[in-house]
Structure formats: C-alpha cells, structure tokens
C-alpha cells in the first residue's frame, strides 16, 4: 500500500494534511493520536467512503478510492458495527460475502464466525447480542472476503478480554499471511502489540513515525505524550 500526500478537507478545515506512508504486505501501522487528529477520516478515505481532496493511495497498484476492484481488497472494521440488528450474525456475514462476490460462501461464513467464537450465537438476532459480541460479528463480517488490507478503527471497542485476545490473534494471523493492516486506537499497548510501525497523528499530519524495532514499548507512552506536546 502506498499513500502519497493525501489530503482531505471539510470546507475550510483540513482533516488530513498531506499524509504519506507505504506499507508492505504483512506490515501493520498503528496510528495513535488525540480525538480530532484525522485518524478516522484517513481510514474512511482509504476505505473509499470519502474522496481525498488531493493526493492518492494505492493498494496492489490499484488506486483508492476506486471501483469494485479496489474495494474488494479492503476490509473495514470500525467501532460502529455496520450490522443489521434484525438479522442474525450468520445472515449478516453471508450478506457481506455476497456483496464481495463470494458465491456459495457457506464455509467462509462458518469459518469467519468460528474465528471470532460466534458460532454458538450465529442464528440469534444481532440486537439480542451484547456490544462485544456484535463487535466480534462485525470483525467476522469484515474478514469474510480475506482482504489484502485491513483498516481497523478502534477495533477493540466493546470487546471483553477474550474478544480482544481473539482479535489480536486474528490480526496477527492475517499479518503473518501477508495482509497489511492499519489500526487506529487510543490503546497504546494493544496497538503496539501488533504494529511493525507506529505513527502519531495530530492536526491531520503524521508528527512522528517509528519502526517497531526502534520502539521501546515500555516507554512509548512518554514518547507519545512528548510528540503531542512538541507537535512533532
């Protein structure tokens, strides 16, 4: 994935201001920053939900946001579950599989739900599930088409310890299999546990970027606070 000088304005306000980075298959970028830093906007641009004002992003050489070919390669996890409450987890995941052009998706759906430990409640209406269970289904939904790039915006939101462990294991498994991941989180520990790179975002810009092997995980909270205080 290559992101080059990506900018997104909302009227006069610049939410993302000339962000550039590259991710190889199997890399994970953890994105930290205060509220309003532009992290979610950046992810929404990469997911094709917002158009960039300028700059560009490519996944496997295909420009984002593009047509179906680009969107097929991306999986989006958000703190919003993006589920239909009246449908069951199985129906939600099967619907997503259909949208991604997976015909005869029964095994893929079962596998996605199994990975998030949701098979037992697979036929209950989503509205009857706890917030954490709904988040698990949402993750299963995002993974059903085996995306090459996973965009995760606060994916741990609402998950209990077991759900968080399942998600971390799943993301590590995906990363090992060559999936590139961009994860936005306020939780430094969870973000750094997966990251091969970490970036701090403020006022729409990357003000600090570190490779994982240069990160002292024990003291990164201090580094993060200092980066925010200095503004880069």
């Amino acid at each position, binding site marked *: 994935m290559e992101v080059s000088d990506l900018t997104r304005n909302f009227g006069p306000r610049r939410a993302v201001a000339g962000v550039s980075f590259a991710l190889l298959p199997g890399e994970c970028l953890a994105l930290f920053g205060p509220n309003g830093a532009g992290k979610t906007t950046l992810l929404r641009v990469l*997911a*094709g*939900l*917002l*158009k960039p004002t300028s700059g560009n992003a490519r996944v496997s050489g295909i420009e984002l946001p593009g*047509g*179906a*070919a680009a*969107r*097929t390669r*991306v999986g*989006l996890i*958000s703190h*919003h*579950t*993006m*589920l*239909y*409450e*009246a*449908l069951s987890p199985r*129906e939600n995941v099967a*619907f*997503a599989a*259909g*949208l*991604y*052009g997976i015909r005869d998706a029964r095994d893929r759906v079962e596998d996605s739900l199994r990975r998030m430990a949701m098979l037992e409640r697979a036929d209950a*209406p989503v509205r009857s599930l706890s917030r954490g269970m709904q988040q698990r289904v949402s993750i299963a*939904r995002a993974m059903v088409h085996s995306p090459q790039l996973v965009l995760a915006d606060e994916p741990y939101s609402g998950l209990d310890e077991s759900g968080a462990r399942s998600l971390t294991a799943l993301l590590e498994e995906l990363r090992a299999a060559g999936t590139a991941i961009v994860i936005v989180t306020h939780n430094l520990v969870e973000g750094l546990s997966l990251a091969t790179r970490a970036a701090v975002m403020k006022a729409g810009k990357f003000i600090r970027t570190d490779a994982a092997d240069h990160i002292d995980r024990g003291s990164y909270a201090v580094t993060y606070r200092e980066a925010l205080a200095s503004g880069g």
Partner: protein
Amino acid sequence: MADVLYTSWLIARKDLAIEFRTRSAFFSAVVFALLALAIFYYAWDPTAVTAGDLAPGVLWVIFTFSGLLGLHRSFGVEISDHAIDGLLASPASREAIFLGKALANLIFVAAVQLVAIPALVLFYNLPLTNIAGPLIAIAVLAAIGLVAVGTLFSAMAVNTRLAELLLPMLALPFFVPIVTAAAQATAKLLSGRPVVEISAWLKLLVAFDLVFVVACTVAFPFTVED
C-alpha cells in the same frame, strides 16, 4: 450486468428479510391504508358522488402516502450503526444498491396494494371482475415510478434531522405526474370505459417509469458518494 442484478437481488432480499422480521413499516402502511379507506368511506355521500368517481382518488391518495412509510424505512435500516458504510465500502456498485433498494420497495408497495385494492373494492362495491387485469397493470406501472423517485429521495433525506418531513416534501412534487396518470386511467376504468381508452395513460406511465428509473439510477451515486 449479471453481477449488478445478483447484488440488487441480494440487497432486496436482505431488506425484505429485515421487514419480514420487524414488520413495522408494513403494518403501519396497511393500518394507514385501511384507516384512510374507512375515513373516506364514512365521509362519502353516495347521493352526491358515485363510487366510481370517488374511488380512484381514494386509491391513489392511499397508495402514495402508505408507500412513503415504506420508502422512509428503506434507508433508515442502513443508518442504524452505520450499516451503510459496510454497503458502500463493499464492491457493490451504487447502481446495484439503488436497484436492490427500489426492488424491495416495489415489493413492499405491491404487498400494501394487495391488501388495499380488495379493501377498496369491498368498501365501494366496485365491479372488479372485468377490470382486474388493467387495474393491476396501472398499479404496477405507477408503483415502479413512485418507488424509483421515492428510493432516491429516501437516500437523500435519511441523513437529515427532518427526514420524515423532507422525504414527502421532496418526493410528492415528482409523484404528481405519475399519480395523475394513474388516477385518470383508474377513473376511466371504473367508469366502465373500454380498456383501449386508457392505453394512452398506460403509455404515459411506461414513459414516466423509464425516465424516472434511468434518471434516479444515474443520480443515486451522487446522493451516497462523498
């Protein structure tokens, strides 16, 4: 094209499954239709206006407003917990999303018509045997146009705070030509005129359908894209 049709059907099936589970919009629309029929019936003076003169207006007022109830819900289900983001981030084409939504709405309106038309026939003691076929043709053709326009405006209105007010305000002016043609054709039919006399109205409805379906399909991406 096959992909678009498959995705449309997938989306329509999902919307219908949600409506079948909740039944909220369908029951609201049917109860509204039956209540409106009853009110019109008791306000009717048969010595002043014949059933054949009154029924077309009653029928199309009921279809128009009961249809709006379903159209409002069409994109309402997508807003809950940002399901629309999942839909728009998927490879489904915007045209397929529109056609799927419109198909589900068409089936919804047809289901309401299935209840409302027999009720109207009962209330006003209308002779249905000879005109059932043409009446169904008028209902289906008008429903296609209404649903195309209504689905587009439902997508536009859903993100606003005044969605329930905005949808009828936006859609009703565009409903006028369809409802006029449908009511005129229905009136001729119920007054015992030969079917050939309504063919001009039917052609007009077909023309409206073509224009509205094509125009709304083309315009829809602009309502959901950034």
